[in-house]
């Protein structure tokens, strides 16, 4: 069983993972934060793209469940040596690992790892395509704070075009009954992403109107050089998620951010540190949600 994206997933399946995450959170609150669920299994984190935060969160989750963890880190180096993704994965598989957690700069690479490896595969972010555990932890964080997601309006603001977080949330949240509005400057907002449950707008005030949650996306300086944006100042002026913008949302609306943040660019520092911000909780919940996902993929499989 894999977690590559949410194609073919049901709300029930998602909720049962989120229910398990509740249990995992309790484990994390104990003095000894460890359960034997994955004892004897070796999990390989194959990171073809750097991300210390995500890797640490996954590795902690695996170790809290008593799995052994081996890390494989490859930049462009192994590829320039002429090794295909398939070669790399088959080599790692030959070392008798039991599952892959894969991060890769190319969309779809996680699917290829699942195909070539033939082992349970967990997508830790592939290109712009998907980052399903991030979306799960966002949903979990919202469910904990707000209760049901049914009918909840969620605004996702920023560089939607290049964001796997936005794509995964736009896949998952409507599955749970939420309505997603993707918002950003037109060059960063692909029209093709609109579908039932997912609206698009270039107007951030329209996006947050009536929203119970607002997620700011990381915006990168390179987008200026890429011709997507005139200037960072203009972006911040129009699209920064701050108190003034949040005033248009529901009174109890909360702030999310997948991190790492550019404070006072895509999100105002004061809002990020306010009690409306769930950013710290997202990180905390990340470990519990990843434990729950590992449990469902690996223990469910052994039974």
């Amino acid at each position: 069983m894999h977690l590559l994206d949410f194609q073919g997933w049901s709300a029930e399946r998602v909720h049962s993972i989120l229910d398990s995450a509740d249990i995992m959170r309790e484990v994390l609150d104990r003095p000894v934060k460890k359960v034997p669920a994955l004892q004897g299994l070796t999990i390989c984190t194959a990171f073809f793209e750097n991300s210390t935060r995500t890797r640490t969160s996954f590795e902690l989750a695996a170790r809290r469940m008593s799995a052994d963890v081996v890390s494989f880190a490859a930049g462009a180096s192994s590829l320039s040596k002429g090794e295909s993704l398939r070669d790399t994965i088959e080599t790692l598989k030959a070392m008798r690992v039991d599952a892959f957690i894969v991060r890769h700069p190319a969309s779809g690479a996680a699917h290829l790892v699942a195909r070539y490896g033939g082992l349970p595969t967990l997508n830790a972010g592939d290109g712009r395509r998907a980052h399903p555990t991030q979306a799960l932890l966002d949903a979990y964080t919202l469910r904990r704070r707000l209760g049901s997601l049914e009918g909840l309006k969620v605004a996702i603001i920023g560089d939607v075009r290049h964001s796997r977080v936005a794509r995964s949330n736009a896949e998952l949240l409507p599955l749970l009954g939420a309505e997603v509005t993707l918002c950003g400057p037109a060059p960063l907002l692909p029209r093709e992403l609109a579908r039932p449950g997912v609206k698009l707008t270039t107007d951030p005030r329209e996006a947050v109107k009536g929203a119970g949650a607002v997620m700011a996306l990381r915006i990168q300086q390179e987008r200026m050089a890429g011709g997507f944006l005139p200037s960072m100042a203009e972006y911040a002026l129009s699209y920064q998620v701050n108190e003034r913008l949040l005033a248009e949302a529901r009174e109890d609306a909360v702030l999310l951010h997948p991190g790492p943040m550019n404070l006072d660019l895509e999100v105002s520092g004061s809002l990020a540190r306010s009690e409306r911000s769930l950013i710290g909780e997202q990180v905390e919940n990340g470990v519990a949600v990843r434990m729950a996902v590992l449990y469902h993929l690996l223990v469910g499989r052994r039974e």
Partner: protein
Amino acid sequence: MITELKNVRRMGENTTGSLFFENGTIRGWNLDLEAQQVLDGRGGTVLPAFLELHAHLREPGQEQKEDLESGLAAAAAGGYGTVVSMPNTAPVVDDPGIVRALIEKSERLGFARLRPSAALSRGQQGEALADLRALRDAGAVMFTDDGRTNEDAHLLRRGLEYAHSLGVLVSVHAEDATLRKDGVMNEGTVSEELGLPGNPWAAEAARVARDVEIALLTGARLHIQHLSTARALEVVRDAKRRGAPVTCEVCPHHLTLTDEALRSFDAIYKVAPPLRTQADADALLRGLLDGTVDCLATDHAPHTQAEKERDLLEAPFGIPNIEVAFALLYTRLVASGRMSLEALVDLFTAGPARVMGWAAPQLEAGAVADVVVVDLEGELEVRPESFKSKARFSPWAGERLRGWPLLTVVNGRVAFQR
């Protein structure tokens, strides 16, 4: 030496007969001649061997992907008698010595006949013209920077003028690279859902529009390669109506596959220009039927298996298809009733000949003995592991097709026999 090719039928006829060759020339049908060599056409249909205007044979320099021997054997297996090779090799074919060496080697091999194209610009860098006259004198039959897009409009203009004065055709990979950017597949719903950088249809249409104007300006013949979009085809249609001296080609994969195939994340489907939408494929077929498209060309682009097992950003562009092109299109277009056999054969033979300004291949006495016998009845599965090409993978692997070549004769000699 006299050769008898017996037990073959002519297109549209039910009875079988014999075609006679002598010293590389067709003598005629059902003659009363004593043959030194007899070939059995096994009841297949005999056609003029096909002409390919766009194949990447990778030699010199990338022989791990393909070489003249594997590439020209693959062409013969696909029913081709003549192949125009592309110059984006390593080194680039911009030197008369390379052109001569390629022709000499191909003649020793005895598979399909090679007619190399050469780079329009030195090193295909798009900055200075290559030595076009010397390249022509060495045997280059076309100038192109295929694989690269001609960004400098002035250089293309001067190259067209000069090549035209030499009587050599220029062909272009019509795509605005600044609009394509880092696109690896068609820009649209699928690319946005998959989160892969898209290549918009306008990158092709905009460049075709520019190049058509340059062709009108210079009066020089211009051939536009591998059209993939409905819109660019519309630009060509308009241009032809205005009398612009342009011709164009379409590839089998753009007619039979769409960007939906990329949902597999399999880099077999990564090709330049990219697989587009069903509406584009339908428009290209209409272009074939109404004569806007002058010929079919395969853009046979072999790579190693390992290169194609990379992710979609890293893997190279290209589909190997020279061995399946006719069977694929016969099955999809003729057997399904969308096109006549005569029209399809024209697009594989007389069409490319007209583009090149060559005599149309035919089966009449006095013509060069380049023929192919195809089996329009029997079905065979596409089996990449038995390809002559070094690229033993295919988007159509496992598909059952009709119309496979049984026998290919080039210059009166057997170049392929199934």
